[in-house]
């Protein structure tokens, strides 16, 4: 029989205002097992906690019920108190008489009656509590970063800086991500390459960092501190360790008409290629869909010109298995397809482009060597129309686009407009906006400069239709403030396409059992207090995979994710959650029902010898729960037909006792 102490908290007037606390402590005094009952103004205060410790000692208590605020608030506090009093911390139960009673009811008799019932349920549960000890598991001191854009790079550098080894997995042939494609960055207009490429070099030269480029994660098993990850290194048909990146093969490759992804298809590359001059690792890659040698065995020129002998047409995909203690997701974003917005004629004219394509057109390393020229005829455009919010902020019932604001478009459009006016003052630049959103340091000042100093025409309204005719783009738009419909003959139309998470994110989330929102952005453990952690322990979020972000935000989040990873890897052992499933081997009949429903694969089977009453032995198949893997959801307890499976902390008997107490 337990000896239970009941402690009713007033929470100032938060509880005492609607609940007669004296009546509650008096009523609970008579419950089975209760040997002591009291109330106090602030149970969570030092004095309140001392009162509990005192009572435990005086009355030899074995269990504690605290009637107070939500267990989400102070369960951990009172468990520490119990521990300080020499009790097992899991002998504490909380009756939530604030959030779920005093705050939602106004009438004192009603509130008091409900508080008593909730208290009785907690007492009934504690009567069946057993001391629990959390398990411990070791931590593999190595981190995995998935995605090699600026988010992944920063996270990896910060983790490596703290002395832990890090691997970066990047599906493209080079790290760098979207930032490598940008020209200048707002609001300071530093050149993206000038601030990114030194970081890429740092990554390459850091002894703690390994880069798996042209690779992807294909399987994740395990749990926090102990992930087993399979990485597929796609065959690039070039020996990475031998290739010097001299580029002779690229020059000689006869197949030169492959659309260049890095320039978004606005120019061509060869079948063997290095994405850009500052690529890391700077090694060539053969595109198997374009290479004649790989397709039909006719060519082999690159192998002949390679002085280092790095070309290997027989290379196969390679699978690498590695253990990690923490995983950081940094899979980034992409602009959405413009197919459903062809009123802007993106598919009908080469001179209607997306903002990312505009970045390449103004980039010195881009297809036009930095000169702003129209893709159709290579002429300098004199009138440019920028359209904001293409595919962002759409209602779900419009059945196209995204519901969220893509966040970065207002600022990069201001940047594009400003840079255009700066370089080509003879150009007329129109920006059609719904709202200009500039909540960042020096952001609004930047936008105002575009308007006031650079003379960009900002028009409140939207473009309705773009009609390519001759060499012009006839833009029909509204100017809401002057209540006019505008007709502009433009030379170039730039669409600020909404951004969406990379397509690889969804299957990755499934592998990691990390949750996602309806837009396929990863969800954070808490939107305000745990913004860089996924609800899945050991999985962290960095950059735009969690939501649209600009570079400064991405870098700060990347650093935050790194610090969380370092905090985890610095530990030698992790304490688990003791509220996990366990199987009664005498009742288990080895039917596998529990194994099938377990989302974590925590249940395995083993053959165990049982001694029978007649002294024979019987080998039976029974379920065994891996305490380090089980997360304690309880799915198996319901699936178990024989009732062998139960959950510590939320045992069937305990929940039934609560039901009985409530329904009395």
């Amino acid at each position, binding site marked *: 029989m337990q000896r239970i102490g009941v402690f009713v908290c007033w929470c100032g007037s938060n509880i005492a205002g609607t609940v007669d606390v004296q009546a509650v402590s008096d009523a609970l005094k008579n419950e089975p097992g209760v040997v002591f009952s009291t109330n106090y103004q602030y149970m969570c205060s030092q004095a309140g906690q001392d009162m509990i410790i005192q009572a435990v000692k005086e009355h030899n208590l074995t269990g504690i019920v605290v009637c107070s605020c*939500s267990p989400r608030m102070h369960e951990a506090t009172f468990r520490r108190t119990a521990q300080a009093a020499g009790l097992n911390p899991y002998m504490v139960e909380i009756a939530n008489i604030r*959030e779920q009673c005093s705050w939602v009811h106004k009438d004192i008799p009603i509130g008091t009656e409900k508080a008593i019932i909730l208290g009785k349920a907690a007492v009934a549960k504690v009567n069946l509590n057993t001391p629990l000890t959390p398990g411990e598991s070791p931590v593999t001191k190595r981190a995995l970063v998935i995605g090699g854009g600026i988010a992944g790079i920063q996270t990896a550098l910060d983790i490596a800086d703290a002395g832990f080894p890090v691997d970066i997995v990047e599906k493209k042939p080079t790290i760098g991500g979207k930032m490598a494609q940008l020209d200048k960055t707002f609001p300071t207009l530093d050149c993206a390459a000038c601030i990114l490429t030194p970081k890429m070099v740092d990554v390459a030269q850091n002894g703690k960092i390994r880069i798996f480029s042209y690779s992807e994660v294909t399987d994740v098993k395990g749990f926090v501190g102990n992930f087993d990850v399979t990485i597929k290194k796609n065959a690039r048909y070039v020996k990475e360790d031998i290739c010097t990146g001299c580029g002779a093969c690229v020059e000689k490759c006869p197949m030169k008409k492959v659309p260049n992804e890095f320039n978004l298809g606005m120019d061509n590359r060869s079948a063997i290629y290095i994405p850009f001059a500052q690529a890391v690792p700077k090694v060539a890659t053969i595109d198997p869909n374009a290479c004649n040698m790989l397709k039909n065995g006719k060519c082999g020129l690159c192998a002949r010109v390679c002085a280092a002998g790095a070309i290997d047409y027989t290379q196969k995909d390679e699978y690498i298995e590695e253990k990690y203690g923490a995983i950081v997701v940094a899979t980034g974003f992409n602009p959405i397809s413009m197919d459903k917005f062809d009123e802007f004629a993106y598919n009908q004219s080469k001179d209607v482009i997306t903002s990312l394509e505009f970045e390449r057109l103004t980039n010195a390393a881009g297809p036009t060597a930095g000169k702003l020229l129209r893709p159709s005829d290579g002429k300098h455009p004199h009138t440019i129309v920028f359209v904001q919010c293409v595919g962002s902020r759409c209602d779900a019932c419009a059945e196209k686009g995204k519901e969220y604001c893509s966040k970065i478009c207002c600022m990069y459009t201001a940047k594009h407009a400003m840079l255009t006016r700066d370089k080509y003052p003879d150009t007329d630049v129109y920006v059609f906006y719904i709202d200009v959103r500039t909540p960042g340091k020096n952001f609004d000042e930047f936008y105002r400069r575009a308007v006031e100093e650079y003379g960009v025409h900002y028009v409140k309204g939207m473009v309705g239709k773009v009609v390519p005719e001759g060499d012009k783009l006839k833009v029909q738009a509204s100017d809401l403030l002057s209540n006019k419909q505008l007709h502009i003959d433009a030379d170039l139309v730039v669409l600020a396409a909404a951004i969406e998470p990379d397509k690889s994110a969804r299957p990755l989330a499934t592998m990691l059992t990390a949750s996602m929102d309806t837009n396929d952005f990863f969800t954070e453990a808490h939107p305000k207090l745990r913004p860089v952690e996924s609800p899945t322990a050991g999985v962290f979020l960095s950059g735009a995979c969690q939501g649209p972000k600009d570079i400064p935000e991405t870098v700060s989040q990347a650093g935050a994710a790194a610090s969380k990873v370092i905090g985890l890897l610095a530990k030698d052992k992790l304490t688990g959650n003791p509220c996990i499933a366990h199987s009664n081997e005498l009742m288990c009949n080895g039917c596998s029902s529990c194994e099938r429903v377990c989302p974590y694969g925590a249940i395995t089977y083993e053959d165990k010898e049982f001694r029978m009453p007649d002294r024979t032995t019987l080998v039976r198949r029974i379920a065994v729960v891996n305490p380090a893997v089980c997360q*304690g*959801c309880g*799915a198996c307890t319901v*699936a178990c037909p024989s009732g062998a499976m139960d959950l510590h902390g*939320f045992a069937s008997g305990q929940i039934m006792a609560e039901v*009985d107490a409530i*329904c009395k």
Partner: protein
Amino acid sequence: MQMNEYKPLIVAFCCNWCSYAGADLAGNNRLNYPADVKIIRVPCSCRVNPMFILRAFQRGADGVIICGCHPGDCHYTSGNYYTRRRMAMLFSMLDYLGIEKERTRVEWVSAAEGAKFAATMNDFAEKVAALGENKRLEDLRCKR
């Protein structure tokens, strides 16, 4: 007029990660719902054994509601899908036990949906109150 005096007894199973937090949020925002609703915390809605629900009815509960995370948002990835299937199964058989289906419900309430929690409880309490007292597993076929 006795009907007015009658207060239903409602047991709500709430998952720790979404619905229990949603109930806390309803409290934080001081959103009223009937005191007849008593919440039992479970780690996941899939921890709710159909047996618990039958036990509640047997002991005189007038309504039982199970609240979990929205489909796809389960903290344990797939627990609420099990709940959905198990409860659909259980609810379809309740009539045979003499318990009206309307006395049970599964509802998805996220940690951010305090208002939804309160509204759900108000609505459910109203519906259960309209059904009157639970006949405690009385066989409906014997009624006439």
